């Protein structure tokens, strides 16, 4: 691993972390109203996978998509403005946190219907295959998506057609409130891909280097018609299902054992990469602190941009029902 890669990973992961923390803070202050599914604790998956991709590769995302958007190169100001539901947002205030897009970066859209964008990623992969383009399509989804039938239809079809597609399952152990052991008889999700002859990996979802290596390998396989590939990343969301914690909806709604939350915080992916940088003497902590300040400034500027942006115009309520082109 190159030193510059380690720093790049850390910067991106920290940017996502600070962005999500700021968002959580603004939710509690009442400045943000749109439901936000924060990805605090899961930053390594977004950064590890997207770092293995090129700008032209496609990504389709789900409700917990801020990290995917930023890791794929989406504009941070437009993201914050969208979360403020402003006209300057990446979706012009029509989408909110759950419908974000940065097509110029290959981030094709996020949507909150569980498993709803998986087949869309297949279609984009099929388009690449038909045009014989050397690119891949990636579908991010959570462990909850394994309860939806369309995922199995998609595994079958993509294997049948050998699509250049990477399934990335972020297994954070909870489907909204329900622990995985109450959702599935066998918690090893990667196994669902195997009956279709799809190469499947189960990896540490808090280890950005491992994720990056695996995603790179997956992309390589896809480009020589050995796709699709399935990657299950074992991770944990440190925030609530929606919002900074599950208490904001009413008193003490977090059903997760405190010990479990604390244990996972010790495996925090952002701290891990930071410690690695210090241990390997890639950068001294003074320089790291400088980077950290710059990132905080970037998030603060995004907030200022969003807050001062104009709101949507009432008279444009019907404007985008149909594409007029």
């Amino acid at each position, binding site marked *: 691993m190159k030193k510059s890669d380690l720093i790049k990973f850390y910067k991106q992961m920290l940017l996502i972390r600070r962005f999500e923390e700021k968002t959580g803070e603004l939710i509690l202050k009442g400045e943000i109203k749109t439901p936000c599914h924060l990805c605090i604790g899961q930053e390594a998956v977004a950064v590890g996978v997207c770092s293995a991709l090129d700008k032209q590769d496609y990504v389709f995302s789900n409700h917990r998509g801020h990290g995917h958007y930023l890791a794929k190169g989406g504009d941070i100001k437009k993201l914050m403005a969208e979360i403020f539901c402003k006209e300057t947002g990446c979706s012009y205030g029509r989408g909110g946190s759950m419908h974000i897009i940065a097509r110029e970066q290959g981030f094709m*859209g996020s*949507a909150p219907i569980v498993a*709803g964008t998986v087949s869309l990623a297949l279609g984009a992969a099929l388009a690449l295959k038909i045009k014989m383009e050397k690119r891949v399509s990636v579908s991010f989804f959570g462990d909850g998506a394994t309860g939806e039938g*369309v995922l199995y*239809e998609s595994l*079958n*079809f993509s294997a049948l057609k050998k699509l250049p597609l990477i399934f990335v399952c972020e297994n954070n152990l909870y489907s909204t409130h329900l622990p995985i052991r109450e959702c599935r008889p066998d918690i090893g999700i990667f196994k669902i891909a195997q009956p279709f002859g799809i190469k499947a990996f189960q990896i540490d979802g808090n280890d950005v280097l491992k994720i990056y290596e695996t995603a790179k390998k997956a992309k390589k396989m896809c480009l020589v018609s050995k796709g699709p590939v399935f990657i299950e990343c074992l991770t944990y969301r440190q925030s609530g299902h929606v919002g900074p914690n599950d208490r904001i909806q009413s008193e003490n709604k977090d059903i997760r054992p405190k010990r479990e939350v604390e244990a996972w915080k010790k495996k925090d992916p952002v701290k891990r990469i930071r410690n690695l940088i210090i241990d390997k003497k890639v950068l001294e902590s003074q320089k790291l602190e400088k980077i950290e300040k710059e990132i905080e400034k970037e998030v603060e500027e995004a907030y200022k941009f969003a807050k001062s942006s104009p709101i949507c115009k009432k008279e444009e309520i019907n404007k985008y*029902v149909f594409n007029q082109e």
Partner: protein
Amino acid sequence: MSLTKNKISYSLAINQALIQLIKSDGSIVLLGQGVKSPWYVGNTSRDLVKRFGEKRVIDTPVSENAVTGIGLGLALAGSRAVVVHPRMDFMLYAMDPIINQAANWNYMYGGGIKVPLVIWGIINRGGEQGAQHSQALYGIFSHIPGLKVVMPSNPYDAKGLMISAVYDNNPVIFIDDRWLYNLEQEVPEEIYRVPIGKAEIKREGKDITIVSASYMLNESLKASDELNKKGIYPEVIDLKTIKPLDADLILKSVKKTGRLLIADASWKSFGVSSEISALVSENALSSLKAPVKRLCLYDAPAPASSQLEKAYYLTKDDIIREVKNILK
């Protein structure tokens, strides 16, 4: 432009549209269950795989949800996709990609996104097929903002509307009816478009306006011809597009005739006929000389028994009877 014409059936008019489209535009992909089969989609997909190969014409497993989403993904990645559901009852498995995804995609990201996706559902009623092989579900899709719904009644429109649907940058639900597949008409051999959103007066008249589409339009025409012999002159409107509805043409006609019969071969409650009736009561009530009447299917699932089927489906005779009642 003078067009060469050939007399072909409704199903072969669709076939011709698909052949010409796929041949002329490398970005068009057709997929769905049965495009290789000699019977599933009638002869609408005749020779397509042979001509264009399995990369452009893809027969799929019965996975309606995923396959429709794949169509949307193709469209978002720059292809023009046509997804066929040979029995539209099975299309209900694809409600998420159609309604949550395709219909909303342009709006929810603030515009500028092309969704060139045709979702083609075939109504396949009659022949004692019963409740799950007979449904005419266009009312459901017409309810959804962001979707266009077209229903051609003849070979000319079938070809022209398929071409328009494929070149539209919004998701279009194209619905045809197997009962029309053998209907023949002269059709231009060239590529041409029938505009989406425009209805057409098929018979000019003065006594009553009859509005219908697809298979039912042909029953309305037969009824009109018989009524003419008795000195009754209905104005018959072919909707062609259900959504966006050509409100102007309907209102203009009703203002002229003062009477309206909506003959719609689907269920009555909360359906297309309800919408047209509401349109007229909101905008042309003072022109009406008689209450608006609706001739629709019973609010009941399709029966299998052929005796019950005869009672269930509508024909020209029902239209003639209803028109005479209104004019009494």
